[in-house]
């Protein structure tokens, strides 16, 4: 009787282990790739603490490693958050960028750059509040329209994106064109080029808090994939749990995008791939999509930093991967 399930759990374990191994491999690869030449020998020496060139040590610990870690975190964070959104909204298109959370976070960050201060901490808070505000708007619009379907979320996302754009332009208008404007523009493109150990250290606690929250509430997330009425009769206070989970995932998104800027489609594509590989949608799938997202992100970033003499904004690459996939989803109307 239990054979079938054992089979599944073995299969999913195997998939996770393989994916994890690929991720480690990709991570090592990304540590080895970059403008500053670091050989495997160099890296092992640096890790052992026996490297004699201080600059190599600095590059490794202050730039290369933090960047690779941030890339992994961004992939995991955005994909897992996307997966959580999709489960909670019972909607396969509800990823942080499509429903407007990312652009809300963007506006929040821009606001704090121009009106408060450009330090990373205040940008994290700005981005978090902005993302949260955008999210509550989307929920509000969907509630108000009383039509809880895919289209409403997409439309609400378009509205939020439009509003965000408007606010962003206003903020840009009031910004100092030479300094702050550059920071904002840079933001809207998304890049890992300026990640340093310091920034990573500031955002890491927020990222971990959000992740731990998601992890602790993994069963709630699963149960919230059915209609509100059913959830209620299963003994969960729907609103409270939903907001708590959304709070955590928005925190994760904000902590990522406040240092990397907008990265499109990473919240959307990996969860779909994860579901179609595992043929399940439980917490396992959410974790799996996080791993896939990290791999996708590392590969995109490796391309972004090597394909041209100067760096390419990461969203260019993720969009080229993500947009066709989205079109494919829309055309095939696959069972999700």
């Amino acid at each position, binding site marked *: 009787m239990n054979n079938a399930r054992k089979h599944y759990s073995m299969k999913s374990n195997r998939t996770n282990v393989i994916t994890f191994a690929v991720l480690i491999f990709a991570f090592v690869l990304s540590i080895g790739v970059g403008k500053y030449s670091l050989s495997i020998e160099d890296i092992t020496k640096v890790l052992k603490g026996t490297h004699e060139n201080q600059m190599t040590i600095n590059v490794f610990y202050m730039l290369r490693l933090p960047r690779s870690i941030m890339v992994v975190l961004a992939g995991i964070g955005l994909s897992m958050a996307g997966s959580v959104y999709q489960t909670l909204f019972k909607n396969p298109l509800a990823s942080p960028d499509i429903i407007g959370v990312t652009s809300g976070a963007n506006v929040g960050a821009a606001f704090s750059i121009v009106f408060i201060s450009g330090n990373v901490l205040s940008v994290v808070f700005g981005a978090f509040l902005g993302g949260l505000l955008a999210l509550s708007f989307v929920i509000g619009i969907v509630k108000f329209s009383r039509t809880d379907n895919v289209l409403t979320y997409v439309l609400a996302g378009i509205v939020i994106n439009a509003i965000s754009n408007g606010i962003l332009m206003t903020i840009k208008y009031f910004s100092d064109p030479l300094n702050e404007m550059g920071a904002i523009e840079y933001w809207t493109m998304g890049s890992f080029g300026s990640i340093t150990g310091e920034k990573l250290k500031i955002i890491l606690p927020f990222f971990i808090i959000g992740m731990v929250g998601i992890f602790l509430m993994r069963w709630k997330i*699963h149960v919230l994939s059915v*209609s509100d009425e059913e959830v209620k009769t299963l003994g969960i206070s729907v609103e409270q749990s939903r907001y708590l989970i959304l709070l955590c995932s928005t925190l994760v998104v904000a902590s990522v995008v406040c240092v990397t800027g907008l990265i499109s489609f990473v919240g959307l594509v990996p969860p779909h791939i994860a579901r179609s590989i595992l043929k399940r949608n439980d917490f396992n799938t959410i974790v799996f999509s996080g791993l896939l997202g990290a791999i996708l992100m590392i590969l995109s970033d490796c391309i972004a930093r090597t394909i041209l003499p100067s760096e390419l904004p990461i969203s260019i690459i993720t969009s080229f991967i993500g947009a066709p996939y989205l079109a494919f989803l829309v055309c095939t109307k696959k069972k999700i």
Partner: protein
Amino acid sequence: MRINGISGGYSDGFFISDISFNIEEGKIYALLGLNGSGKTTIIKMICGLIKLKSGNITIGEKDLFTLKEKERAKLISYVPQSGTIVYYTTVVDVVLMGATPYLNMFQTPAQEHREQALECLEILGISELADRNYLDLSEGQKQIVVIARALMQKGTYMLMDEPESSLDLINKNKLMKKIREIIINMNKSCVISMHNPEYALNYCDRILLLKDKKITEIDLKTEDINMVEKKLSEIYGQVKILEYNQKYMLYYSD
């Protein structure tokens, strides 16, 4: 369970008031009424999905709505017209959702819950579906899975809102039979709202007849079949009940 003069309704104006009846253990109640008569409203009020405007519901000495959602979920389970699962989910995982009232905020079902879920499936005779994807099942199987989930909640009272409505004839009968089996065997009680009085006559112990927002209760064990016929005719028009092989059939006499 005593339902004492409850009132409530939707914000768009539909309102039902002063409904009272009792639900006894080990009995199946059929909630009959025409479309829009308020069957679903009553079910949802009892489940706490629509707020009561007045009246109360008590189980023993306890007022149901002073309890927390979680505690209520341990007493009452709800079976909707159809489950609302949109993603690939295994049947076991659907059933496991029924363990939620017994978990705290950050807990996830453990192995013991898994075993209970498998037991529930076994009781309903669908163990072989355990690892199938819920979305791939037939409507009838899906409904049984949702009932398994309700069973998992271990509540005494099960409220079902037209559970057979989307099924074909064979599956309707199968489902009703199954429901009857578990309610009687496990000494639970059940209120099923439905359209077809035939199923009420064949599978239920009592009928709650909803007409003009008032409940008339009929005990099928004690009531004379002619009286039942007369009462049913009041809402469905001139109907006759035929008895054949200890089964009842309904036809329109005019």
